[in-house]
């Protein structure tokens, strides 16, 4: 055993409780400790990921009760991959916001970092837990952290955004509870593997109703249309790095929950088509909404939603290739969109309105940030040789292999729309004249490092996608093999039976 998945949850919790205490003694610790915790989580998660890629899945039981009875954590290639990705992004966001100018002098700084850490911990929990009610709890942890972070800046419209988020979030948790109630009433169990194992026993009517409520509950977190009204607001009003965290962490957790349902828990084949359709609708609505945006972050938010739609389309293809493509897309999106948010947040740092027109001509004044933004824009629209291209290619290949030619066409048409609005911004950055009342904010060194790390990952994956493809292949294999998942979870439990 190389590590324990439970530590990924327990250590941040411990730290969260500790920070207020230590913070009274040593002020700097409120900023530093979350970073250390995230670093520890990153190391631990990465080493476990290496282990599970080459060996078997790590399954950890909690409180000593075997699988169907107790809660268990599953660190499989899929969940491990996503968890590592989220923790990595959490770390990057921490690095970026460490001594972020805005919150450095504020008392809530300590809260900011606690919430950030808990956001990551909650998202990791969503991914690695093997119990649906436990997942619900982690969704709530993530959501509350997200509400708080969205409303972090006073004096903006952030409370409004947060309230919308909260309104939708509580609808989501209601729907989730109803769905859990239905499942429990029929199957008498809450363990995912056990549910998946017994799902064939469940009456069809209940099964579908439960699935629908799950779709609504998790769909709100995963930003599918029409449940994503909160998302643009939240992305826009949250601090820049938090937008990155939303795009890279929270949504990914939602998507994971969704696909776990569709692929593992429920055996309804039509739900795949549903994913494709809802994904396409999300993609089209979001991307077309982005084209006329005049606020930078809002545009990025819509783009992020659109990309999630594309992820759902890729998952909905339903083959191992499709899953691979979708995971690849998630990976790339999780790297690129945070980069865009981070660099974008510096581009419009001192502006009140955060308008796109305010980035005019910043290419000369903040060259590296602008370059990274441009790199991100190039990558996200799928231009080779950057990483986004390979995932787009994988998606299209997978779709083509299933004969979904119309879908390919639609996805590509939407990509053109994407190009239009991203390039408009890039053009403004580089080829317009800066207006005099825009005050340039140079990024701090730590923020710069964070962005450069993301940028270099884009280049590395772009030039050699095979660096990550082995993990992605393992992960997609893991998701596709429901039986293996069930057997793994249930058999580990048996071996520990008292």
């Amino acid at each position, binding site marked *: 055993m190389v590590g324990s998945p439970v530590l990924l949850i327990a250590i941040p919790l411990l730290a969260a409780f500790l920070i207020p205490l230590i913070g009274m003694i040593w002020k700097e610790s409120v900023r530093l400790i979350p970073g250390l915790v995230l670093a520890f989580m990153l190391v631990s998660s990465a080493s476990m990921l290496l282990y599970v890629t080459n060996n078997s899945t790590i399954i950890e039981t909690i409180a000593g009760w075997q699988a169907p009875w107790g809660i268990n954590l599953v660190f499989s290639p899929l969940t491990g991959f996503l968890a590592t990705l989220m923790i990595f992004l959490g770390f990057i966001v921490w690095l970026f916001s460490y001594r972020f100018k805005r919150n450095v002098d504020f008392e809530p700084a300590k809260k900011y970092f606690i919430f950030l850490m808990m956001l990551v911990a909650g998202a990791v929990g969503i991914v690695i837990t093997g119990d649906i*009610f436990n997942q619900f*709890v982690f969704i*709530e942890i993530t*959501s*509350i952290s997200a*509400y*708080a972070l969205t*409303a972090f800046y*006073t*004096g903006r*419209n952030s*409370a*409004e*955004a*947060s*309230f*919308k988020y*909260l*309104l939708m*979030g*509580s*609808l989501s*948790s*209601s729907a989730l*509870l*109803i769905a*859990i*109630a239905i499942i*429990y*009433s029929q199957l008498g169990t*809450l363990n995912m593997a056990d549910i998946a194992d017994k799902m064939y026993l469940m009456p069809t009517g209940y099964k579908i109703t439960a699935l629908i409520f799950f779709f609504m509950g998790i769909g709100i977190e995963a930003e599918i249309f029409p449940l994503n009204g909160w998302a*643009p*607001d939240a992305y*826009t*009003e949250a601090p820049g790095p938090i937008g990155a965290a939303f795009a890279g962490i929270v949504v990914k957790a939602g998507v994971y929950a969704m696909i776990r349902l569709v692929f593992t828990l429920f055996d309804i084949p039509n739900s795949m088509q549903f994913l494709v359709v809802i994904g396409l609708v999300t993609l089209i609505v979001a991307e077309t*909404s982005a084209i*006329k*945006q005049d606020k930078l972050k809002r545009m990025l938010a819509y783009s992020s939603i659109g990309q999630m739609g594309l992820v759902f389309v890729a998952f909905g293809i339903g083959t191992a290739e499709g899953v691979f493509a979708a995971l690849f897309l998630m990976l790339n999106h999780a790297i690129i969109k945070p980069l865009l948010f981070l660099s974008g947040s510096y581009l419009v740092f001192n502006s009140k309105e955060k308008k796109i027109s305010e980035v005019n001509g910043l290419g000369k004044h903040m060259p590296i940030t602008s370059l990274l933004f441009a790199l991100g824009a190039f990558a996200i629209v799928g231009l080779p040789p950057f990483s986004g291209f390979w995932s787009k290619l994988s998606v299209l290949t997978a779709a083509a292999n299933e004969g979904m030619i119309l879908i390919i066409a639609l996805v590509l048409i939407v990509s053109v729309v994407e190009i239009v609005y991203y390039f408009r911004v890039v053009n403004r950055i580089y080829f317009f004249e800066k207006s005099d009342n825009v005050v340039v904010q140079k990024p701090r060194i730590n923020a710069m490092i964070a962005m450069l790390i993301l940028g270099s990952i884009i280049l590395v994956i772009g030039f050699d996608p095979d660096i990550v493809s082995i993990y992605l292949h393992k992960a997609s294999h893991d998701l596709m093999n429901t039986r293996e998942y069930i057997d793994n979870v249930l058999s580990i439990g048996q071996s520990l039976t008292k």
Partner: protein
Amino acid sequence: MNNELYEILRYGILGGSILLILIGLYAALTKRSLIKIIIGLSIVDGGIHLLLIGIGYVKNGTAPIFSPGFENSTANMVDPVPQALVLTAIVIGFAVTAVALSLVIRLYRHHNTLEIDEIKNLKW
């Protein structure tokens, strides 16, 4: 407890829970005051908790507590799991409500109103 009474009780609980959910949703969807919307959401939560309790109920059930004198009544005990879940759900619901109310305070500070229709600075 005879069968009919049990049925009535069960339908009462479930129907009541559905009614609560609908009432809560109605409030959340039509009321314009933020406070009322939050109240609506709380009612929805209450309905769902009732639903959860309802599904764990068994005929002639007793509380799942092995107090002295009840050690052997396992067969009649109601399902303890939904109750445990409800406990968790209530706390979470409470936490969300608290955050919601604090947001309402912030919104009132910022907009000087509680009308949800007028809090539309972010759109499109």
